[in-house]
């Protein structure tokens, strides 16, 4: 449950991107996405340049393209929504392959697809190169309220424990011949969820008592303060700065 655990999106490595302090990476990823979102959608070439920038980062981080593309699949539900847009949006229509599509909707779909994909790719790269514990330290360093960081760290640390508990309950149900097939079985599943809640809550109380007995008084001691040198900040912010240059070009051209 300590720092040794890595989440399943993390790819262990020793690349320059892995070595950057977590808060610089968080700041860079966030700034990059902000820049991407504020780019005018008509500047199609700008998005291609952004993709090239991200590909360069992925190359530097030695994240294989297949891994990145597989993680992008999380976007699929909104892709479906984007595909619908040209059919339902307002404005002048254009005929493509016999279908009457809205010009505005096409732009909207392109906008969502391009910006959404770039945003997801940036998050995936961030998660792939940063360990969980580092990520939490970075959030703390970026002045997120300490209590919020603590809650997040408990959620992350015990997420697997609770999920495993849920899995054991499922195995117990199934080994007694239960198979959820429809609405009639919701009662059983809901009772499991209720039991899971009670177990989680009671575990929380035990964890709290264990912490109090070890001297916890409402704040976690910071034992490994992460710091970033000027060179590391420059390195991390190179991505959003390059993106900003592209964005400004996109607005002026």
């Amino acid at each position, binding site marked *: 449950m300590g720092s040794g655990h890595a989440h399943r*999106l993390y790819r262990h490595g020793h690349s320059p991107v892995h070595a950057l302090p977590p808060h610089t990476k968080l700041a860079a990823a*966030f700034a990059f*996405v*902000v820049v*991407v979102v504020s780019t005018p959608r008509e500047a199609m070439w700008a998005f291609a340049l952004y993709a090239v920038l991200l590909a360069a980062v992925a190359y530097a981080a030695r994240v294989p393209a297949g891994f990145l593309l597989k*993680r992008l699949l*999380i*976007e699929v539900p*909104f892709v479906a929504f984007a595909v619908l847009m040209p059919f*339902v*949006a*307002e404005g002048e229509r254009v005929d493509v392959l016999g279908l009457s599509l809205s010009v*505005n*909707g096409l*732009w909207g779909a392109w*906008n*969502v697809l*391009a*910006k*959404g994909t770039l*945003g997801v790719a940036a998050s995936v790269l961030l*998660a792939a190169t940063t360990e969980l514990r580092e990520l939490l330290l970075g959030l703390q360093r970026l002045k997120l*309220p300490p*209590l*919020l960081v603590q*809650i*997040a760290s*408990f*959620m*992350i640390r*015990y*997420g697997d*424990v*609770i*999920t495993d508990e*849920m899995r054991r309950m499922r195995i117990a149900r199934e080994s007694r011949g239960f198979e*959820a*097939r*429809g*609405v009639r*079985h*919701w*009662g059983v*599943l*809901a*009772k499991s*969820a*209720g*039991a*899971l*809640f*009670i177990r*989680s*809550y009671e*575990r*929380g*109380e035990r964890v*709290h008592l264990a912490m109090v007995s070890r001297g916890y*008084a409402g704040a*976690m001691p910071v034992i490994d303060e992460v710091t970033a040198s000027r060179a590391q900040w420059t390195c991390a912010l190179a991505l959003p700065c390059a993106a900003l240059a592209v964005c400004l070009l996109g607005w002026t051209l």
Partner: protein
Amino acid sequence: MHVPDGFINAPTSAVTGVVAAGAIAVSLRGARRELDERTAPLAGLVAAFIFAVQMLNFPVAAGTSGHLLGGALAAILVGPYTGVLCVSVVLLMQGILFADGGLTALGVNITDMAIVTTVVAYALFRGLVKVLPRGRRSVTAASFAAALVSVPAAALAFTFIYWIGGTTDVAIGKVATAMIGVHVLIGIGEAAITALTVGAVIAVRPDLVYGARGLTQRLKLRVGGELVDAPAAEPAAAPAAARSHRKLWLTGLVTSLVLAGFVSFYASANPDGLEKVAADKGIDKTAEEHAAADSPLADYGVKDITDARLSGGLAGVIGVGVTVVAGSAVFWAVRRRRTDDVSPTSTSV
């Protein structure tokens, strides 16, 4: 309903980010009062529970299945402040770790799924528990109704945000119809699961259910064959708490009325032509409507004012302003009330 980047334009994302940050700050303070220094482990574990229970699949029929969103459940089980915190943390971690929902859309996602869901659900739940007879069954019924309304309310909030800052001009009527239509169905499932889960927890550990705290029987002593109230350690707590909840309920209800009123007003307008009319006329009409509506469901059927159409931008500004003011009024009022009366309840678990 996780919104990706680029779906809502940058200014609106920034505004919702500020709203979300403010609400989280208030909730941090409120949760600390609900749970004192146990906040971090307990809220963390409940967040992990919400995260896990979102993965629990409930088969509907013919291979389809749904899962819980958890906002209403969190609000009823652990209280509104902790609920907002838990769902927000889940969304934050989903955004950063799993790329589920965009980083710039975090504000939209938190406002929509953590704040609106939880606040609407809890306000309605409180109101219903007040009205219904005391008992376990009415708590379950109230959680059903709260969860049922909370999901379409989140869809409405999303439609509202989309209307202000959506990047594509899809007719807002179509968005509203699609979103609300789908989410009423989801809401029914959510309601059934939430009510069953709350019922299951109440049956075993009623003391853990935040929303059922008023149900605990006063300790009685049998003195000479007669039942006498035990010398209560917290006699003043109950009425004060009740008053604070009523305040919360009323203000929360007004908030959701304002929100729903504005949105359904536009949802029912003819989507093709949002003509500009005098803004003050439209404002008068909507204000009258709020005064006349007396139940949260009444707002979904605001159909009699289709002739009045506000100019989009102005109404957007007013809508955001009213929502923010009313929302912060809820938190402010509750915070004021909570300071003196919450210590007995938080130590009683």
